[in-house]
């Protein structure tokens, strides 16, 4: 099977293919490597992303214009490949310098996969990073080199400046690293066994943590997660618990298992007597839960998390997960998409802690300011300019569309609220859209009750609805009066019927002489529940049954009375 057929996985964590490859695997790219059979490495299927990304080209362009037949057929199968043009503002070096650890490589690879113009640079940076850090994750290294080779082969921009030592796998180094990884795994495992034999709690915990760390370094996230989780039974102090939580959160974010992140955030939060660097831990937990909420599309909760981080992470202290710039961007966008005006003022604009982050990303600050000041042209302009950049963000890319729509909707609602009449052509201009499109958006907002207005589609004017409260009250009260009358009458009638025994009963009690056409057989259980009746009843019961079917077909009536 083509590994691209499971696109979600490949997107969530770009190295998910690698996790399955055992760290001992000498074959550089196992069959589970997503890029193995890929002719266009920059084309990643994105099933989770909305297809309507407007300024994203859906076909390959730039460097990768050497299609062969095979490639063509593949491209057809994945029409919705999201490929991002050169981002407008992204400075790759500056951007990536804010991160450390795995997320750095993950982000670089993510960008390389999606953006042809930055592909070579990103891959180069990633490979250099791996090598300088003496990574133990050799399969990943090999994979990146392979990607770089492919990119150069298809002449991606900047391929002329790729030095040959990056293009070739440094075999000797790789082998030694693999050897090292293997040895260390064995050593740590035997040590752990030893600790277990001696059953010293703290040693076992340390052993598990070390093993987890090692697996994490090797890129084997599932085993790392296992290792970290095992320490749970050996935690003795709150500090240990926090350590456990932080480790599990780190791995879970990388695995894309965000519900798990939330549970561990809660666990860490509820741990009493948090150790010395309390504020830092708290901030990190907030950031993690913000990411999780963002991933689960709970934008309001995510915004609240990001906004309450405080000043602790301004210096990219949580760089292995999130940079300070990200906090500004994620928090700002989520807040715009989900907060009301007063909330925006109180929680974002007047938020001293968050202001520090906003200084790092001035355009987000401008965006929020212009939105708050109802300067929607500027606001939408900024959003548009930065869209491509955010599409290259590993966490934000699949939410950009939803966030942007929400912000837009809120902008529309705010725009119309102070006016009695709004000229649709002018409004369309300030929202840089066409009148029919705007009309459609407005209609959906009116129907959902977010805008109280009506559209004059002939003259293209939006009229605020003049609800006559007095009339509405009159109508409501008459309707209520009618309901009351009806219900009370029904009640009186019902009591009378009960009083006089006008209750629908099984036909047996009433008139056993056949010709009884009602009910009865509709209620097997009740009849049998009364119990104690013999075969004679069964016979009569059958008679009634046929009677009922007759009855159903032609409501003729036969009264057995007299």
């Amino acid at each position: 099977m083509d590994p691209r057929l499971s696109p979600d996985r490949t997107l969530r964590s770009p190295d998910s293919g690698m996790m399955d490859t055992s760290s001992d695997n000498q074959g550089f790219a196992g069959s589970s490597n997503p890029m193995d059979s890929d002719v266009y490495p920059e084309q990643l299927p994105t099933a989770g992303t909305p297809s309507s990304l407007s300024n994203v080209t859906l076909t390959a362009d730039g460097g990768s214009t050497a299609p062969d037949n095979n490639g063509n057929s593949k491209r057809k199968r994945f029409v919705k490949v999201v490929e991002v043009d050169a981002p407008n503002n992204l400075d790759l070096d500056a951007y990536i310098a804010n991160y450390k650890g795995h997320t750095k490589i993950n982000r670089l690879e993510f960008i390389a996969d999606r953006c042809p113009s930055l592909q070579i640079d990103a891959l180069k940076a990633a490979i250099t990073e791996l090598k300088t850090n003496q990574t133990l994750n050799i399969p990943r290294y090999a994979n990146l080199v392979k990607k770089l080779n492919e990119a150069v082969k298809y002449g991606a921009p900047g391929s002329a400046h790729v030095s040959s030592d990056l293009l070739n796998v440094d075999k000797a180094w790789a082998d030694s690293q693999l050897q090292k990884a293997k040895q260390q795994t064995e050593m740590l495992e035997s040590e752990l066994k030893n600790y277990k034999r001696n059953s010293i709690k703290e040693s076992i915990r340390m052993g598990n943590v070390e093993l987890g760390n090692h697996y994490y370094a090797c890129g084997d996230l599932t085993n790392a997660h296992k290792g970290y989780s095992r320490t749970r039974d050996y935690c003795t102090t709150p500090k240990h618990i926090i350590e456990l939580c932080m480790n599990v959160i780190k791995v879970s974010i990388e695995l894309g298992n965000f519900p798990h992140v939330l549970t561990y955030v809660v666990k860490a939060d509820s741990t009493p007597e948090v150790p010395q660097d309390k504020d830092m831990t708290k901030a990190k937990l907030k950031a993690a839960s913000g990411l999780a909420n963002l991933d689960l599309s709970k934008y309001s909760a995510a915004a609240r998390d990001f906004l309450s981080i405080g000043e602790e992470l301004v210096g990219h202290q949580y760089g292995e997960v999130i940079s300070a710039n990200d906090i500004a961007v994620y928090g700002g966008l989520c807040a715009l998409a989900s907060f009301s005006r007063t909330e925006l003022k109180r929680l974002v604009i007047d938020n001293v802690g968050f202001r520090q982050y906003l200084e790092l990303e001035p355009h987000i600050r401008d965006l929020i300011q212009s939105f708050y000041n109802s300067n929607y042209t500027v606001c939408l302009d900024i959003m548009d300019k930065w869209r491509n950049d955010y599409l290259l963000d590993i966490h934000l890319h699949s939410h950009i569309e939803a966030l942007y729509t929400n912000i837009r909707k809120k902008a529309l609602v705010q725009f119309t609220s102070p006016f009695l009449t709004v000229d649709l052509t002018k409004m369309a201009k300030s929202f840089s859209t066409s009148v029919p499109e705007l009309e459609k958006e407005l209609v959906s907002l009116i129907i959902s009750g977010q805008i109280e207005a009506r559209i004059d589609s002939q003259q293209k004017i939006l009229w605020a609805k003049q609800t006559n409260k007095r009339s509405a009250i009159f109508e409501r009260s008459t309707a209520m009066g009618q309901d009351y009358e009806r219900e009370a009458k029904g009640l009186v009638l019902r009591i009378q019927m009960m009083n006089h025994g006008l209750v629908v009963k099984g036909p047996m009690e009433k008139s056993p002489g056949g010709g009884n056409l009602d009910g009865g057989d509709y209620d097997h259980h009740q009849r049998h529940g009364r119990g104690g009746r013999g075969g004679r009843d069964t016979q009569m019961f059958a008679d009634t049954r046929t009677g009922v079917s007759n009855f159903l077909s032609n409501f003729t009536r036969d009264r057995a009375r007299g």
Partner: protein
Amino acid sequence: MAPNEPTLDEIIAKIQSCLDTATITKTLLPFLNNLHESVFSARPHGQTDPIDILSPAAHSFAYLYFLVYRCKASHGFHPALLEKVWAFVTTCDGDQIRAASDKALSFAEALVKMAMESHQPVIAIRPLAVFIQRIQLSPGQLTMIHPLLAKTCLLAQSFKDIAPILDCDISDVNPTSTHIDYRDFLLYHYYGGMIYAYLKQFERAVEFFKLAVSAPADVASAIQIESYKKYVLTSLLHYGKVPTLPKYTATAVNRCLKLHCVPYSEFAVAYEKKSNSAIRTELEKHKQALVRDRNYGLAKQCMEALHRRNIQDLTRTYLTLSIEDITSIIGLGSDQDGARRVEGIIVRMIESGDIFATISHEHAGGMVSFLDDPNQHNNTATMDKINAQMQKATAITSSLIAMDQAISSMPAYFNKGSHTIDHPAYPMDESDYGMQLGYDAYADEGSILSSALYAD
């Protein structure tokens, strides 16, 4: 004729001697019941017809006996007999008739039978309608004639005479004086609902079907099931959704409805979503069931009503909209035919006061301007309406209070109340009690055991 049978003259004399209700029930009732029916149906030759001697007003009781058998014996339509029937129903004495309510029912049935045999069910309607008003104690009383009349009207498709009767809500049921049982109640409301549906007064129809469905019941009646089916469709027609049934709807009925009305509930769910295509597929899917229940026509009307409802929704969103746009929005296709249909629908809606709008043909295709409800509720009409409603409400409330007081002072109520307080949960029998206890103890032990097991 048996020798000890009284002669006709004696009978007449006897009848003429009994003029007040007390003597009628005491002496005349057994006397007439003992007579052979040929006495009433025979038309003696040469002599004057006994029925002509009697006055329908003074001797209503006996007159009814004669009429019952005359009508039964008559096959087909006789103008002379009909004249007598008419004279009888317009002048008869309600008290005397109520004394023989079973005979009154036979009379009505015979009349209907006679009308049916002459293939003119319509001739029975007016006499029955008048007859009902004669024998009712109050306008809201349900009589045994009600369902019969409703059914006859349905068969004759003539609703002019029954309309005032239907419009008067049933507020009094008394099986002892009017000879009715629960089936009369259910059938009357079922037929009544059908009549209202036919007259397109869907709000009343829903009301009637609801009364039938929510009638007190130990087991569900087929009439209730059928009523519910029509209840679903008429509610969709009128409200666009199915209001929940009253809380007091019998559980047995509710259970049956879930079992037997699956196509209807599925259709309703699709309808409430207002999606044209989904409703259409549901309609096709359940067409067979609907046709079998003879409800397909109503379901098709629901489709029409959907367009109206959608247009009504548009009035909330738009001030002006071209007919073309309306057509495409409500999904009637964009061809010329669709536009004409839409215009027709809009015109009818404007006429019926469902929407307030004007259509202008200045622009190609026509432009609809939706207006607000011109009624500003600042006129005397509104005042009167509110006042009338308030009076009704207070009247009902006071009658409810009176009823509540009557119930709370009833000895039966006290007995029942004190009974349940005395023995809230204990079994009546001593031995039962012991068994219960033993069982409970056993059960407790078991639960303890099992919990212990799980704990390990």
